[in-house]
């Protein structure tokens, strides 16, 4: 599972599956349940699909970059740098998840959506970005950097 291209393919597939689950299958619930002042729930659902898609894409790109970087032989000699790199990428997921939540908030500031729904959107983005990145790098990092992700 930690060999190329399997790890790339599985990461993209898992990202796509999660996006389908949260943006499509749960999209109606996430857009129709909040009370909207003016906006059509269909429009909100479209916005959520786009934002969640961007989040998944960022996470997949970061994970794939980690696979590419970790598969290089020279990394065996610079494991502390690799560790720092993984932590930066991991933090990036949290920061971007928060930033994308802020984007949703800004886009819907006049709609009077209850804050718990913004919390839910952040939760979804957390899963689509932070959990996706951690899970894929935890399970499928190249051998050289296999023990760098948290939890190993």
């Amino acid at each position, binding site marked *: 599972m930690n060999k190329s291209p399997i790890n790339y393919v599985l990461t993209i597939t898992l990202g796509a599956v999660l996006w389908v689950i949260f943006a499509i299958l749960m999209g109606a619930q996430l857009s129709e349940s909040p009370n909207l002042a003016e906006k059509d729930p269909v429009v909100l659902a479209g916005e959520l699909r786009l934002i969640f898609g961007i989040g998944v894409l960022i996470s997949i790109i970061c994970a794939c970059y980690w696979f590419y970087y970790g598969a290089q032989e*020279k990394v065996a*000699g610079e494991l502390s740098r690799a560790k720092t790199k993984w932590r930066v990428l991991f933090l990036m997921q949290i920061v971007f998840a928060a930033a994308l939540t802020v984007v949703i908030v800004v886009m819907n500031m006049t709609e009077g959506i209850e804050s718990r729904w913004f919390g839910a959107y952040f939760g979804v983005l957390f899963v689509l970005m932070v959990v996706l990145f951690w899970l894929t790098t935890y399970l499928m990092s190249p*051998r050289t*950097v*296999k*023990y760098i992700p948290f939890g190993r």
Partner: protein
Amino acid sequence: MPKNVLIGIGGTGSRVVESVVNLCAAGLGPDKLHIFLIDPDEGNGNLTRTKSLITRYTKMRSLFERTGNNPSFRTEIVIPPGNEPFVWSIFEEKHSTLGKYINYDNLKKNNPELANLANVLFTDAELGTDLERGFRGHPSIGSVVMSDPPMNEYPFKLLWDGIETFGENELRVFVVGSIFGGTGAAGFPTLGSLPLLKYNEAMHAKLGEGKSRILLGGALVLPYFSFNADGEEKEPMFVTNSDFPVATKAALQYYNDKQLGFDQYYFIGDSLSQNVGKFSTGSSEQENKPHYIEISSALASFDFFEQPKEATTEPKYFIASRESPVIDWTSFPISRNSDALLSNARQFRDRLADFTIFAYSFLTFGKNILAKTHKQTSDETWYAENFRKNFKEESAIYNPRHQDNNELYVIADSFLSSFLYWICSLDDGDKVKLVDSSKILAEPIPSNKKLSLRDPEASPAFIGEVIRTRGDAPKHNFNKFRTAEQKDALIQSDAMTAGSKYLNIFYSLSSSFNRKNLVNS
């Protein structure tokens, strides 16, 4: 099961035994090998080095539990037990002379005819020179004093123990020494005389007419080195390079005429005549650099020990010679068996290459890792796979840094350093192209032999160039070593100490690295 006994005689004999021990460490020897030495010069530097090496080999072997696919230290080397002598030093007293040995002063008084005979056979210098430093290139002295070894005492007892349990040719005795010096040239034909070993009735070697329990083999090492004799000409009865050919010719004529008990002879020599250092008549100063001919001689003993017990009736002759003045991995006479030649040659190179990289990587990277804490190293994949999951600080089974593992590391450090000294000393930078010592050593070997090794983490490209090969195929660097696949890096054993596991990992990583690095050569 046949018993293998190797007897090294004199300085060359002990140096060949040094090569035998190093090759056994690399996994090339027989399953079991009994070894002892004969040398009147107990302080001889070559002898001291070999003795110390064997002691460390046996200790390392006893402490180091190896996995099934790790051939290193495979050979069980047996030496006399406890404080029993490992070397037959011939003389019981210090400062012996031939005159004292034959009671020359008494002979002059009580038996002048015999004293006169001694005068005909030996010069005054030969009768009166202190033999504590050996026979100084005069085998005629040695053959007198070595003719009656104490067979019931160690180290000879090692040879005879259990003799009655062996059938014909099942006790394989291999004698190795130089033909051109003193002790070897004297001891070789003396031990080879028919009644002494081959048909020794008192020790039950003889089975009947023309039959013996002993299969006797010997390697006569012909002149193969030169040395510097600056200022040493003042020593009594010193030998020089120019004496070697004359001594050799005389000895070969003797072997041709005299009927000896040897079943198989190996004549090994070299015309490159490499310089092995400063001349010394003996003592601790006689410590010469290792030479590749000693490896050839060691391989001759392995070839001998592999022979079937059925004696061949028809004489057979085998000749091997190098094709060019350059000595590389293919230059060695590996076996008389032509079917096994290629595979044995490959095995010879691979095992020595693996052990060299193992020694180098453990002494550098391996020790660096041990100097760090468990937490500091647990991102290293090979380390984590072996030690992270079940790590227990207080357990020698799961913690490679546990103090109970230190004894193994200390002996490994010492033995592997000696091995690297030996293999690096073979590299003359010109004709002998086995390993490139400049890729291992940060500085030339100092006189105290304390090696200064290159750090492979700081200079990762060098490790791939340590083993010299003919081709120009691109070589891997140290990162390849660290990124071995799990099947090579993971040592699965719950009973093995973490110290042994740690060493096995390094052997396995070295072997895996070499298979990738030397794939096209």
